């Protein structure tokens, strides 16, 4: 043992008797999520900024588009998603920037865990913050625009769209944070790549809100599933290379 000191850090990643490797991996992910949530619960700077920003966007759209009742029903899904995506970009920008500024990301990298666990932890954290903002914006939106948004399928679409957006966003945010103009860089990198999610989410939401037949909504819904699967898989495969120092 003495000539192999690195052996000592192994138990946290892998086999402690009775826990499988996968359970240890999940534990690592959960620890990172818990850390991000705890930090946010104390500072509240991220979610409150995202929230105020979202409400402003919703109000600005109302003036910019001069929505009457009929127009409102047709554009509601588009306005909603644009709001979520702008707010999401704000949040994603901060999740890595805050780590970098405090120098805590290096600490995270030193932790004896699989690097991809950091990706999933960060991604779940970002998705949680987006979902929290969405959970507050949607009722407000319902009241202001006079459209009932509480349909179970719509909530599933919001969940899938947010997961896909946070998945790719976390990957690209970990890159953008190292660039010179990091706040501007993220949307430039992220928007062209996430266009399929936005299209699919808007089309599926519109279909659900206008009570279209499931046959018309299903292709968009499937596209969301396909996008989430492919991009989270790609992110999982390449994330190691982004944090390799």
């Amino acid at each position: 043992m003495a000539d192999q000191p690195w052996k000592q850090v192994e138990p946290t990643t892998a086999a402690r008797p009775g826990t499988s490797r996968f359970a240890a991996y999940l534990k690592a992910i959960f620890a990172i999520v818990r850390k991000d949530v705890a930090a946010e619960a104390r500072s509240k700077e991220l979610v409150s900024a995202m929230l105020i920003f979202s409400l402003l966007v919703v109000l600005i759209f109302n003036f910019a588009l001069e929505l009457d009742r009929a127009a409102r029903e047709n554009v509601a899904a588009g306005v909603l998603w644009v709001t979520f995506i702008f707010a999401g970009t704000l949040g994603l920008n901060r999740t890595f920037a805050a780590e970098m500024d405090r120098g805590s990301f290096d600490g995270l990298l030193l932790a004896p865990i699989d690097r991809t666990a950091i990706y999933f932890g960060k991604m779940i954290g970002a998705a949680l913050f987006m979902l929290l903002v969405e959970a507050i914006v949607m009722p407000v939106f319902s009241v202001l625009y006079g459209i009932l948004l509480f349909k179970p399928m719509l909530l599933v679409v919001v969940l899938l769209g947010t997961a896909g957006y946070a998945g790719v966003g976390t990957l690209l945010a970990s890159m953008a944070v190292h660039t010179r103009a990091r706040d501007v860089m993220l949307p430039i990198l992220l928007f062209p790549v996430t266009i399929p999610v936005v299209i699919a989410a808007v089309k599926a939401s519109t279909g659900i809100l206008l009570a279209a037949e499931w046959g018309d909504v299903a292709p968009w819904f499937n596209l969301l599933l396909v996008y989430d699967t492919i991009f989270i898989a790609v992110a999982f495969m390449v994330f190691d290379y982004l944090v390799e120092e």
Partner: protein
Amino acid sequence: MSVSAPRNLQILTVVTAGLMLIALGLVFLYAPQEATMGEVQRIFYFHVPSAWVGGLAFFVTLLAGIAYLRTGDDKWDRVGYSSVEIGVTFALMTLFSGMLWGRPAWNTWWTWDPRLTTFTILLLVYFAYLMLRQGIEDPGRRARFAAVYGIVGFVSVPITYFAIQLARSIHPVLFGPNNPDAQGSGGPLTPAMLQTFFFSLFSFTVLYFTLLWHRLRLANFAERVEQLKAKMMSA
């Protein structure tokens, strides 16, 4: 490292210039005038090969990105970067030649057609690629990030295409299943048109590899200059 181009590259450059001239001659002198579209149809012989070269260039970037991540060899980073620059140039040419054609054929410079939209998104992905590279100082990190973005960006394209293709397209499809909604396509191509087209496609492909070779030499020189600079500074 010799400054003058290697002999093979010199020959290739001359051959490419010859091929392009012949292609030009074929397009304007050999290919017949198209019945419904008239002279403007001749854009097609450059428009489609440019689009092909754009796609090929980005595909090469994808492969170079994977190769870089697997081997860590800087050579692949230079291939990917060079290929993106060429691809963006040809993609822009495709876009503008398409607009020139669309104005008489569709009576508009731009329409939100699936094929047009996905192509433009593709272009934006690679503009972002170039901006990303410019924003990173550290060469190793720049290479890794660029490789990752080259992969993620290319994967997004077929999905974007599929996403928008759920709607209908008015862009003509000449090869593969015919597009019943297409507007502006004439009749089937005559043999002379097909010969011209395939010659042009071939010439453009050769042009791509010639440009890539030249661009790679430039990248190698730039790398060498960086090394010499670093040496001077430390001395």
